[in-house]
């Protein structure tokens, strides 16, 4: 099939346009973070900074010890959380995909039920603070909400039952493998594409999480990066709008519009740096699945 040059051009043009549409706001954000605050107030945002300035970053990194520690916390919860999350999700999803599991439909329903109904904020908070005493501990960043969710479990269950033929599992039995060996040696390698998908989603949700930190963490040493940046922003905004006298002078000299942009850049940077490597693996995983299917 010979491709029509007009068609190729049209397709390329459409994709180039879409890429620009996706890239432009981000570039504008990066550019704004390097612009002088006054220039933004006077002339608005521009791709080429009117007046170049590092004030926003200087403000954020005047607290660099805290920022570095927060990065550490976020890295820790992201790695541990994603690993644990994947483990638990597959440990529930895989058995659910096997039709020899007793009470299968009841357990499935139980999982599904959590998707439809939630306890609400107050009970949620009470369980983790009064019952499990997780307030101001690292566990509060790992467990609530994020570890796994019903949707991931159901997704993985469908993935297991659709893409792992029962025959493979049976032949492993015949060879004398026990359930744990089958799960670990046979099922997991075959499920790589699914794991990559869910792993990526878990990773992003752990990286971006600030809500758990907001309600469970008051101890500054446990702030994750998103939580810390969020708090810095909220504080600056508040001080700017409601002057509590005395130190208001210091607060109002903060370049708030550009700080907002710099915060976004700092929050997203490590993820962007890691993404190409992850994506390579992610795409490979997907194509393996595609060929097998």
């Amino acid at each position, binding site marked *: 099939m010979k491709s029509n040059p007009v068609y190729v051009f049209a397709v390329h043009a459409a994709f180039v346009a879409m890429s620009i549409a996706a890239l432009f706001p981000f570039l504008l954000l990066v550019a704004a973070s390097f612009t002088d605050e*006054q220039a933004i*107030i*006077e002339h608005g945002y521009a791709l080429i900074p009117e007046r170049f300035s590092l004030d926003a970053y200087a403000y954020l990194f*005047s*607290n660099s010890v*805290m920022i570095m520690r927060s990065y550490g916390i976020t890295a820790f919860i992201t790695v541990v959380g994603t690993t*644990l999350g994947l483990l*638990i999700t597959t*440990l*529930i999803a895989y*058995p659910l995909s*096997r039709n*020899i*599991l*007793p009470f299968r439909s009841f357990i499935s329903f139980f999982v599904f039920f959590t998707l439809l109904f939630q306890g609400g*904020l*107050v009970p949620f*908070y*009470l369980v983790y*603070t*009064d019952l*499990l*005493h*997780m*307030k*101001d*501990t*690292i*566990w509060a960043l790992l*467990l609530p909400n994020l570890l796994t969710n019903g949707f991931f479990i159901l997704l993985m269950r469908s993935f297991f039952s659709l893409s792992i033929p029962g025959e493979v599992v049976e032949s492993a*039995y015949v060879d004398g493998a*026990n*359930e744990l060996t089958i799960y670990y040696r046979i099922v997991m390698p075959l499920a790589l594409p699914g794991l990559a998908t869910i792993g990526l989603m878990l990773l992003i949700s752990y990286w971006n999480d600030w809500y758990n930190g*907001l*309600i469970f963490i*008051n*101890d*500054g*040493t446990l702030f994750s990066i998103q939580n810390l940046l969020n*708090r810095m922003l*909220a*504080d600056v*905004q*508040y*001080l*700017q*709008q409601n*002057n*509590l*006298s*005395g*130190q*208001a*002078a*210091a*607060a*109002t*000299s903060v370049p*708030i519009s550009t700080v907002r942009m710099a915060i976004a850049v700092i929050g997203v940077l490590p993820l962007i740096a890691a993404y190409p490597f992850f994506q390579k693996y992610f795409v490979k995983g997907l194509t393996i699945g595609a060929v097998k299917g």
Partner: protein
Amino acid sequence: MGMKWTTPAKSATILLAAAIGLAACGNAEGEPKSNGGGNQSAPNKTYEVVMTYPAFGDVTDVQAVQDAISAITAEKVGATVKLVPVNGSNYANQLNLMLSGSEKLDLAYTSVWFGFESQVSRGQLLPMDEPLAASGKGILETVPEATAEAGKIKGETYGIPSMKAWALSPSLVMRKDLLDKHGIDTTGLKTWSDADSVLQVIKDKEPGVAPMVSYTAQETPGTAMLYFDPLGTAPGVLEFEGTDYAVEEITATDAFANMAALMKQWFDKGYFNKDIATTQETGSSLIKAGKAFSFIRNINDCYTESVAAGAELVCVPLESSYMTRNSVASNMMSLARNSENPEKAIQVLDLLYTDEAVINLFTNGIEGKHYVKSTDGLIAKPEGVERTGYDSNQYAVGNNFLSYVWTGNAPDIWKQLQALNESAVKSRAMGFSFDINPVKAQIASVTNVQNQYDAGFQTGISDPAELAVYREKLKQAGIEKIVAEKQKQLDEWLDTK
């Protein structure tokens, strides 16, 4: 193949989950936490008073401050303190969560803006009259009786206001540089409409500068012109002067109609930007950017406004300063339901109102580390230090008039503010709190209508002729029922007085 997917395997999974949960418990209790202070395990059995409040800015050094305060309180009242600063923007939410569980909490910052009334009606705050009489003598002597009324509900104290500037002055706030440049005399300004002449000069001679802007999206120019006692946060207002206690619907008053007409006139003359009703830029930042000349606001003092705007401002009060329940009860300290020892809690609170060392530690931090004192008695950040680790947290808690004054303020600023507090017109219904429960649904729908129309009239975008439409919509939303309910409750309150 002995164990298929039968119960043992399943319970193994559950066990794993449980183990994680248990490990979490173990961690929380076993590991000596840095901010534990002297809790129940300590041999000397000093009671630890846990206090939560909103903090803005950097409070990383709170542990050091807490230790310093505890050293004083342990000696004076035999209790230590644990400070739990909560990020200010999340405080209302967090307070409700903390009050609903069995979390240990003794003193909680409360505010009429953060649901004080409903916290009381849910029984989450303890009545304070008895413990105050027993161990809060200093508080009772410090807080003027008339203002202490604001923390009462049905005659019982549930919150103690922090000592600060309570009086608000509805003022026209203008840039001094432009006033001087055009030789404008402000002494003739007596009423809101007098401002016209000044704004016209700026309009004519300073292209690119908006003669007037909103202070925030909520504080539009017209807002501060409505000179009434709001009687809480729901509709229904009271005149400051007079002897009858007639609750009025604000849009029905002459003041509202006059305000709407004046705003329309100013808008038509081009004193406002076209986007005045919707912009998110604050008045201070617009002035700072040189794009605006003035705003109208209920201010505490002119200096803070100038600091915020980064320019010297002139503030001309155009109504008498006033003090209402809202302005007093916006910062209070209450006893939380979970307090195990209200007496010790009140004793600690008493020190925050009477002990200069304690309140200065709390608001300004540790001398030499978080601030330095200069020869004139004023304080400033240590030379060359941008971040001290403890940003000053003024106004919210305790007796601020005992705290040191930051450089840049008038040295006698506290005296001035106290004098203003005394001279301000006081609300005649300081101790009246409106229970919104009977008219909750109406308030919700009225608020919707207000959100749609209010800003329009208060920025002159809407034609005053449309006021009838607005009032009709309010009527449909049930505003009359709210006003009637407020009147009823106010009458009942008057009977008990």
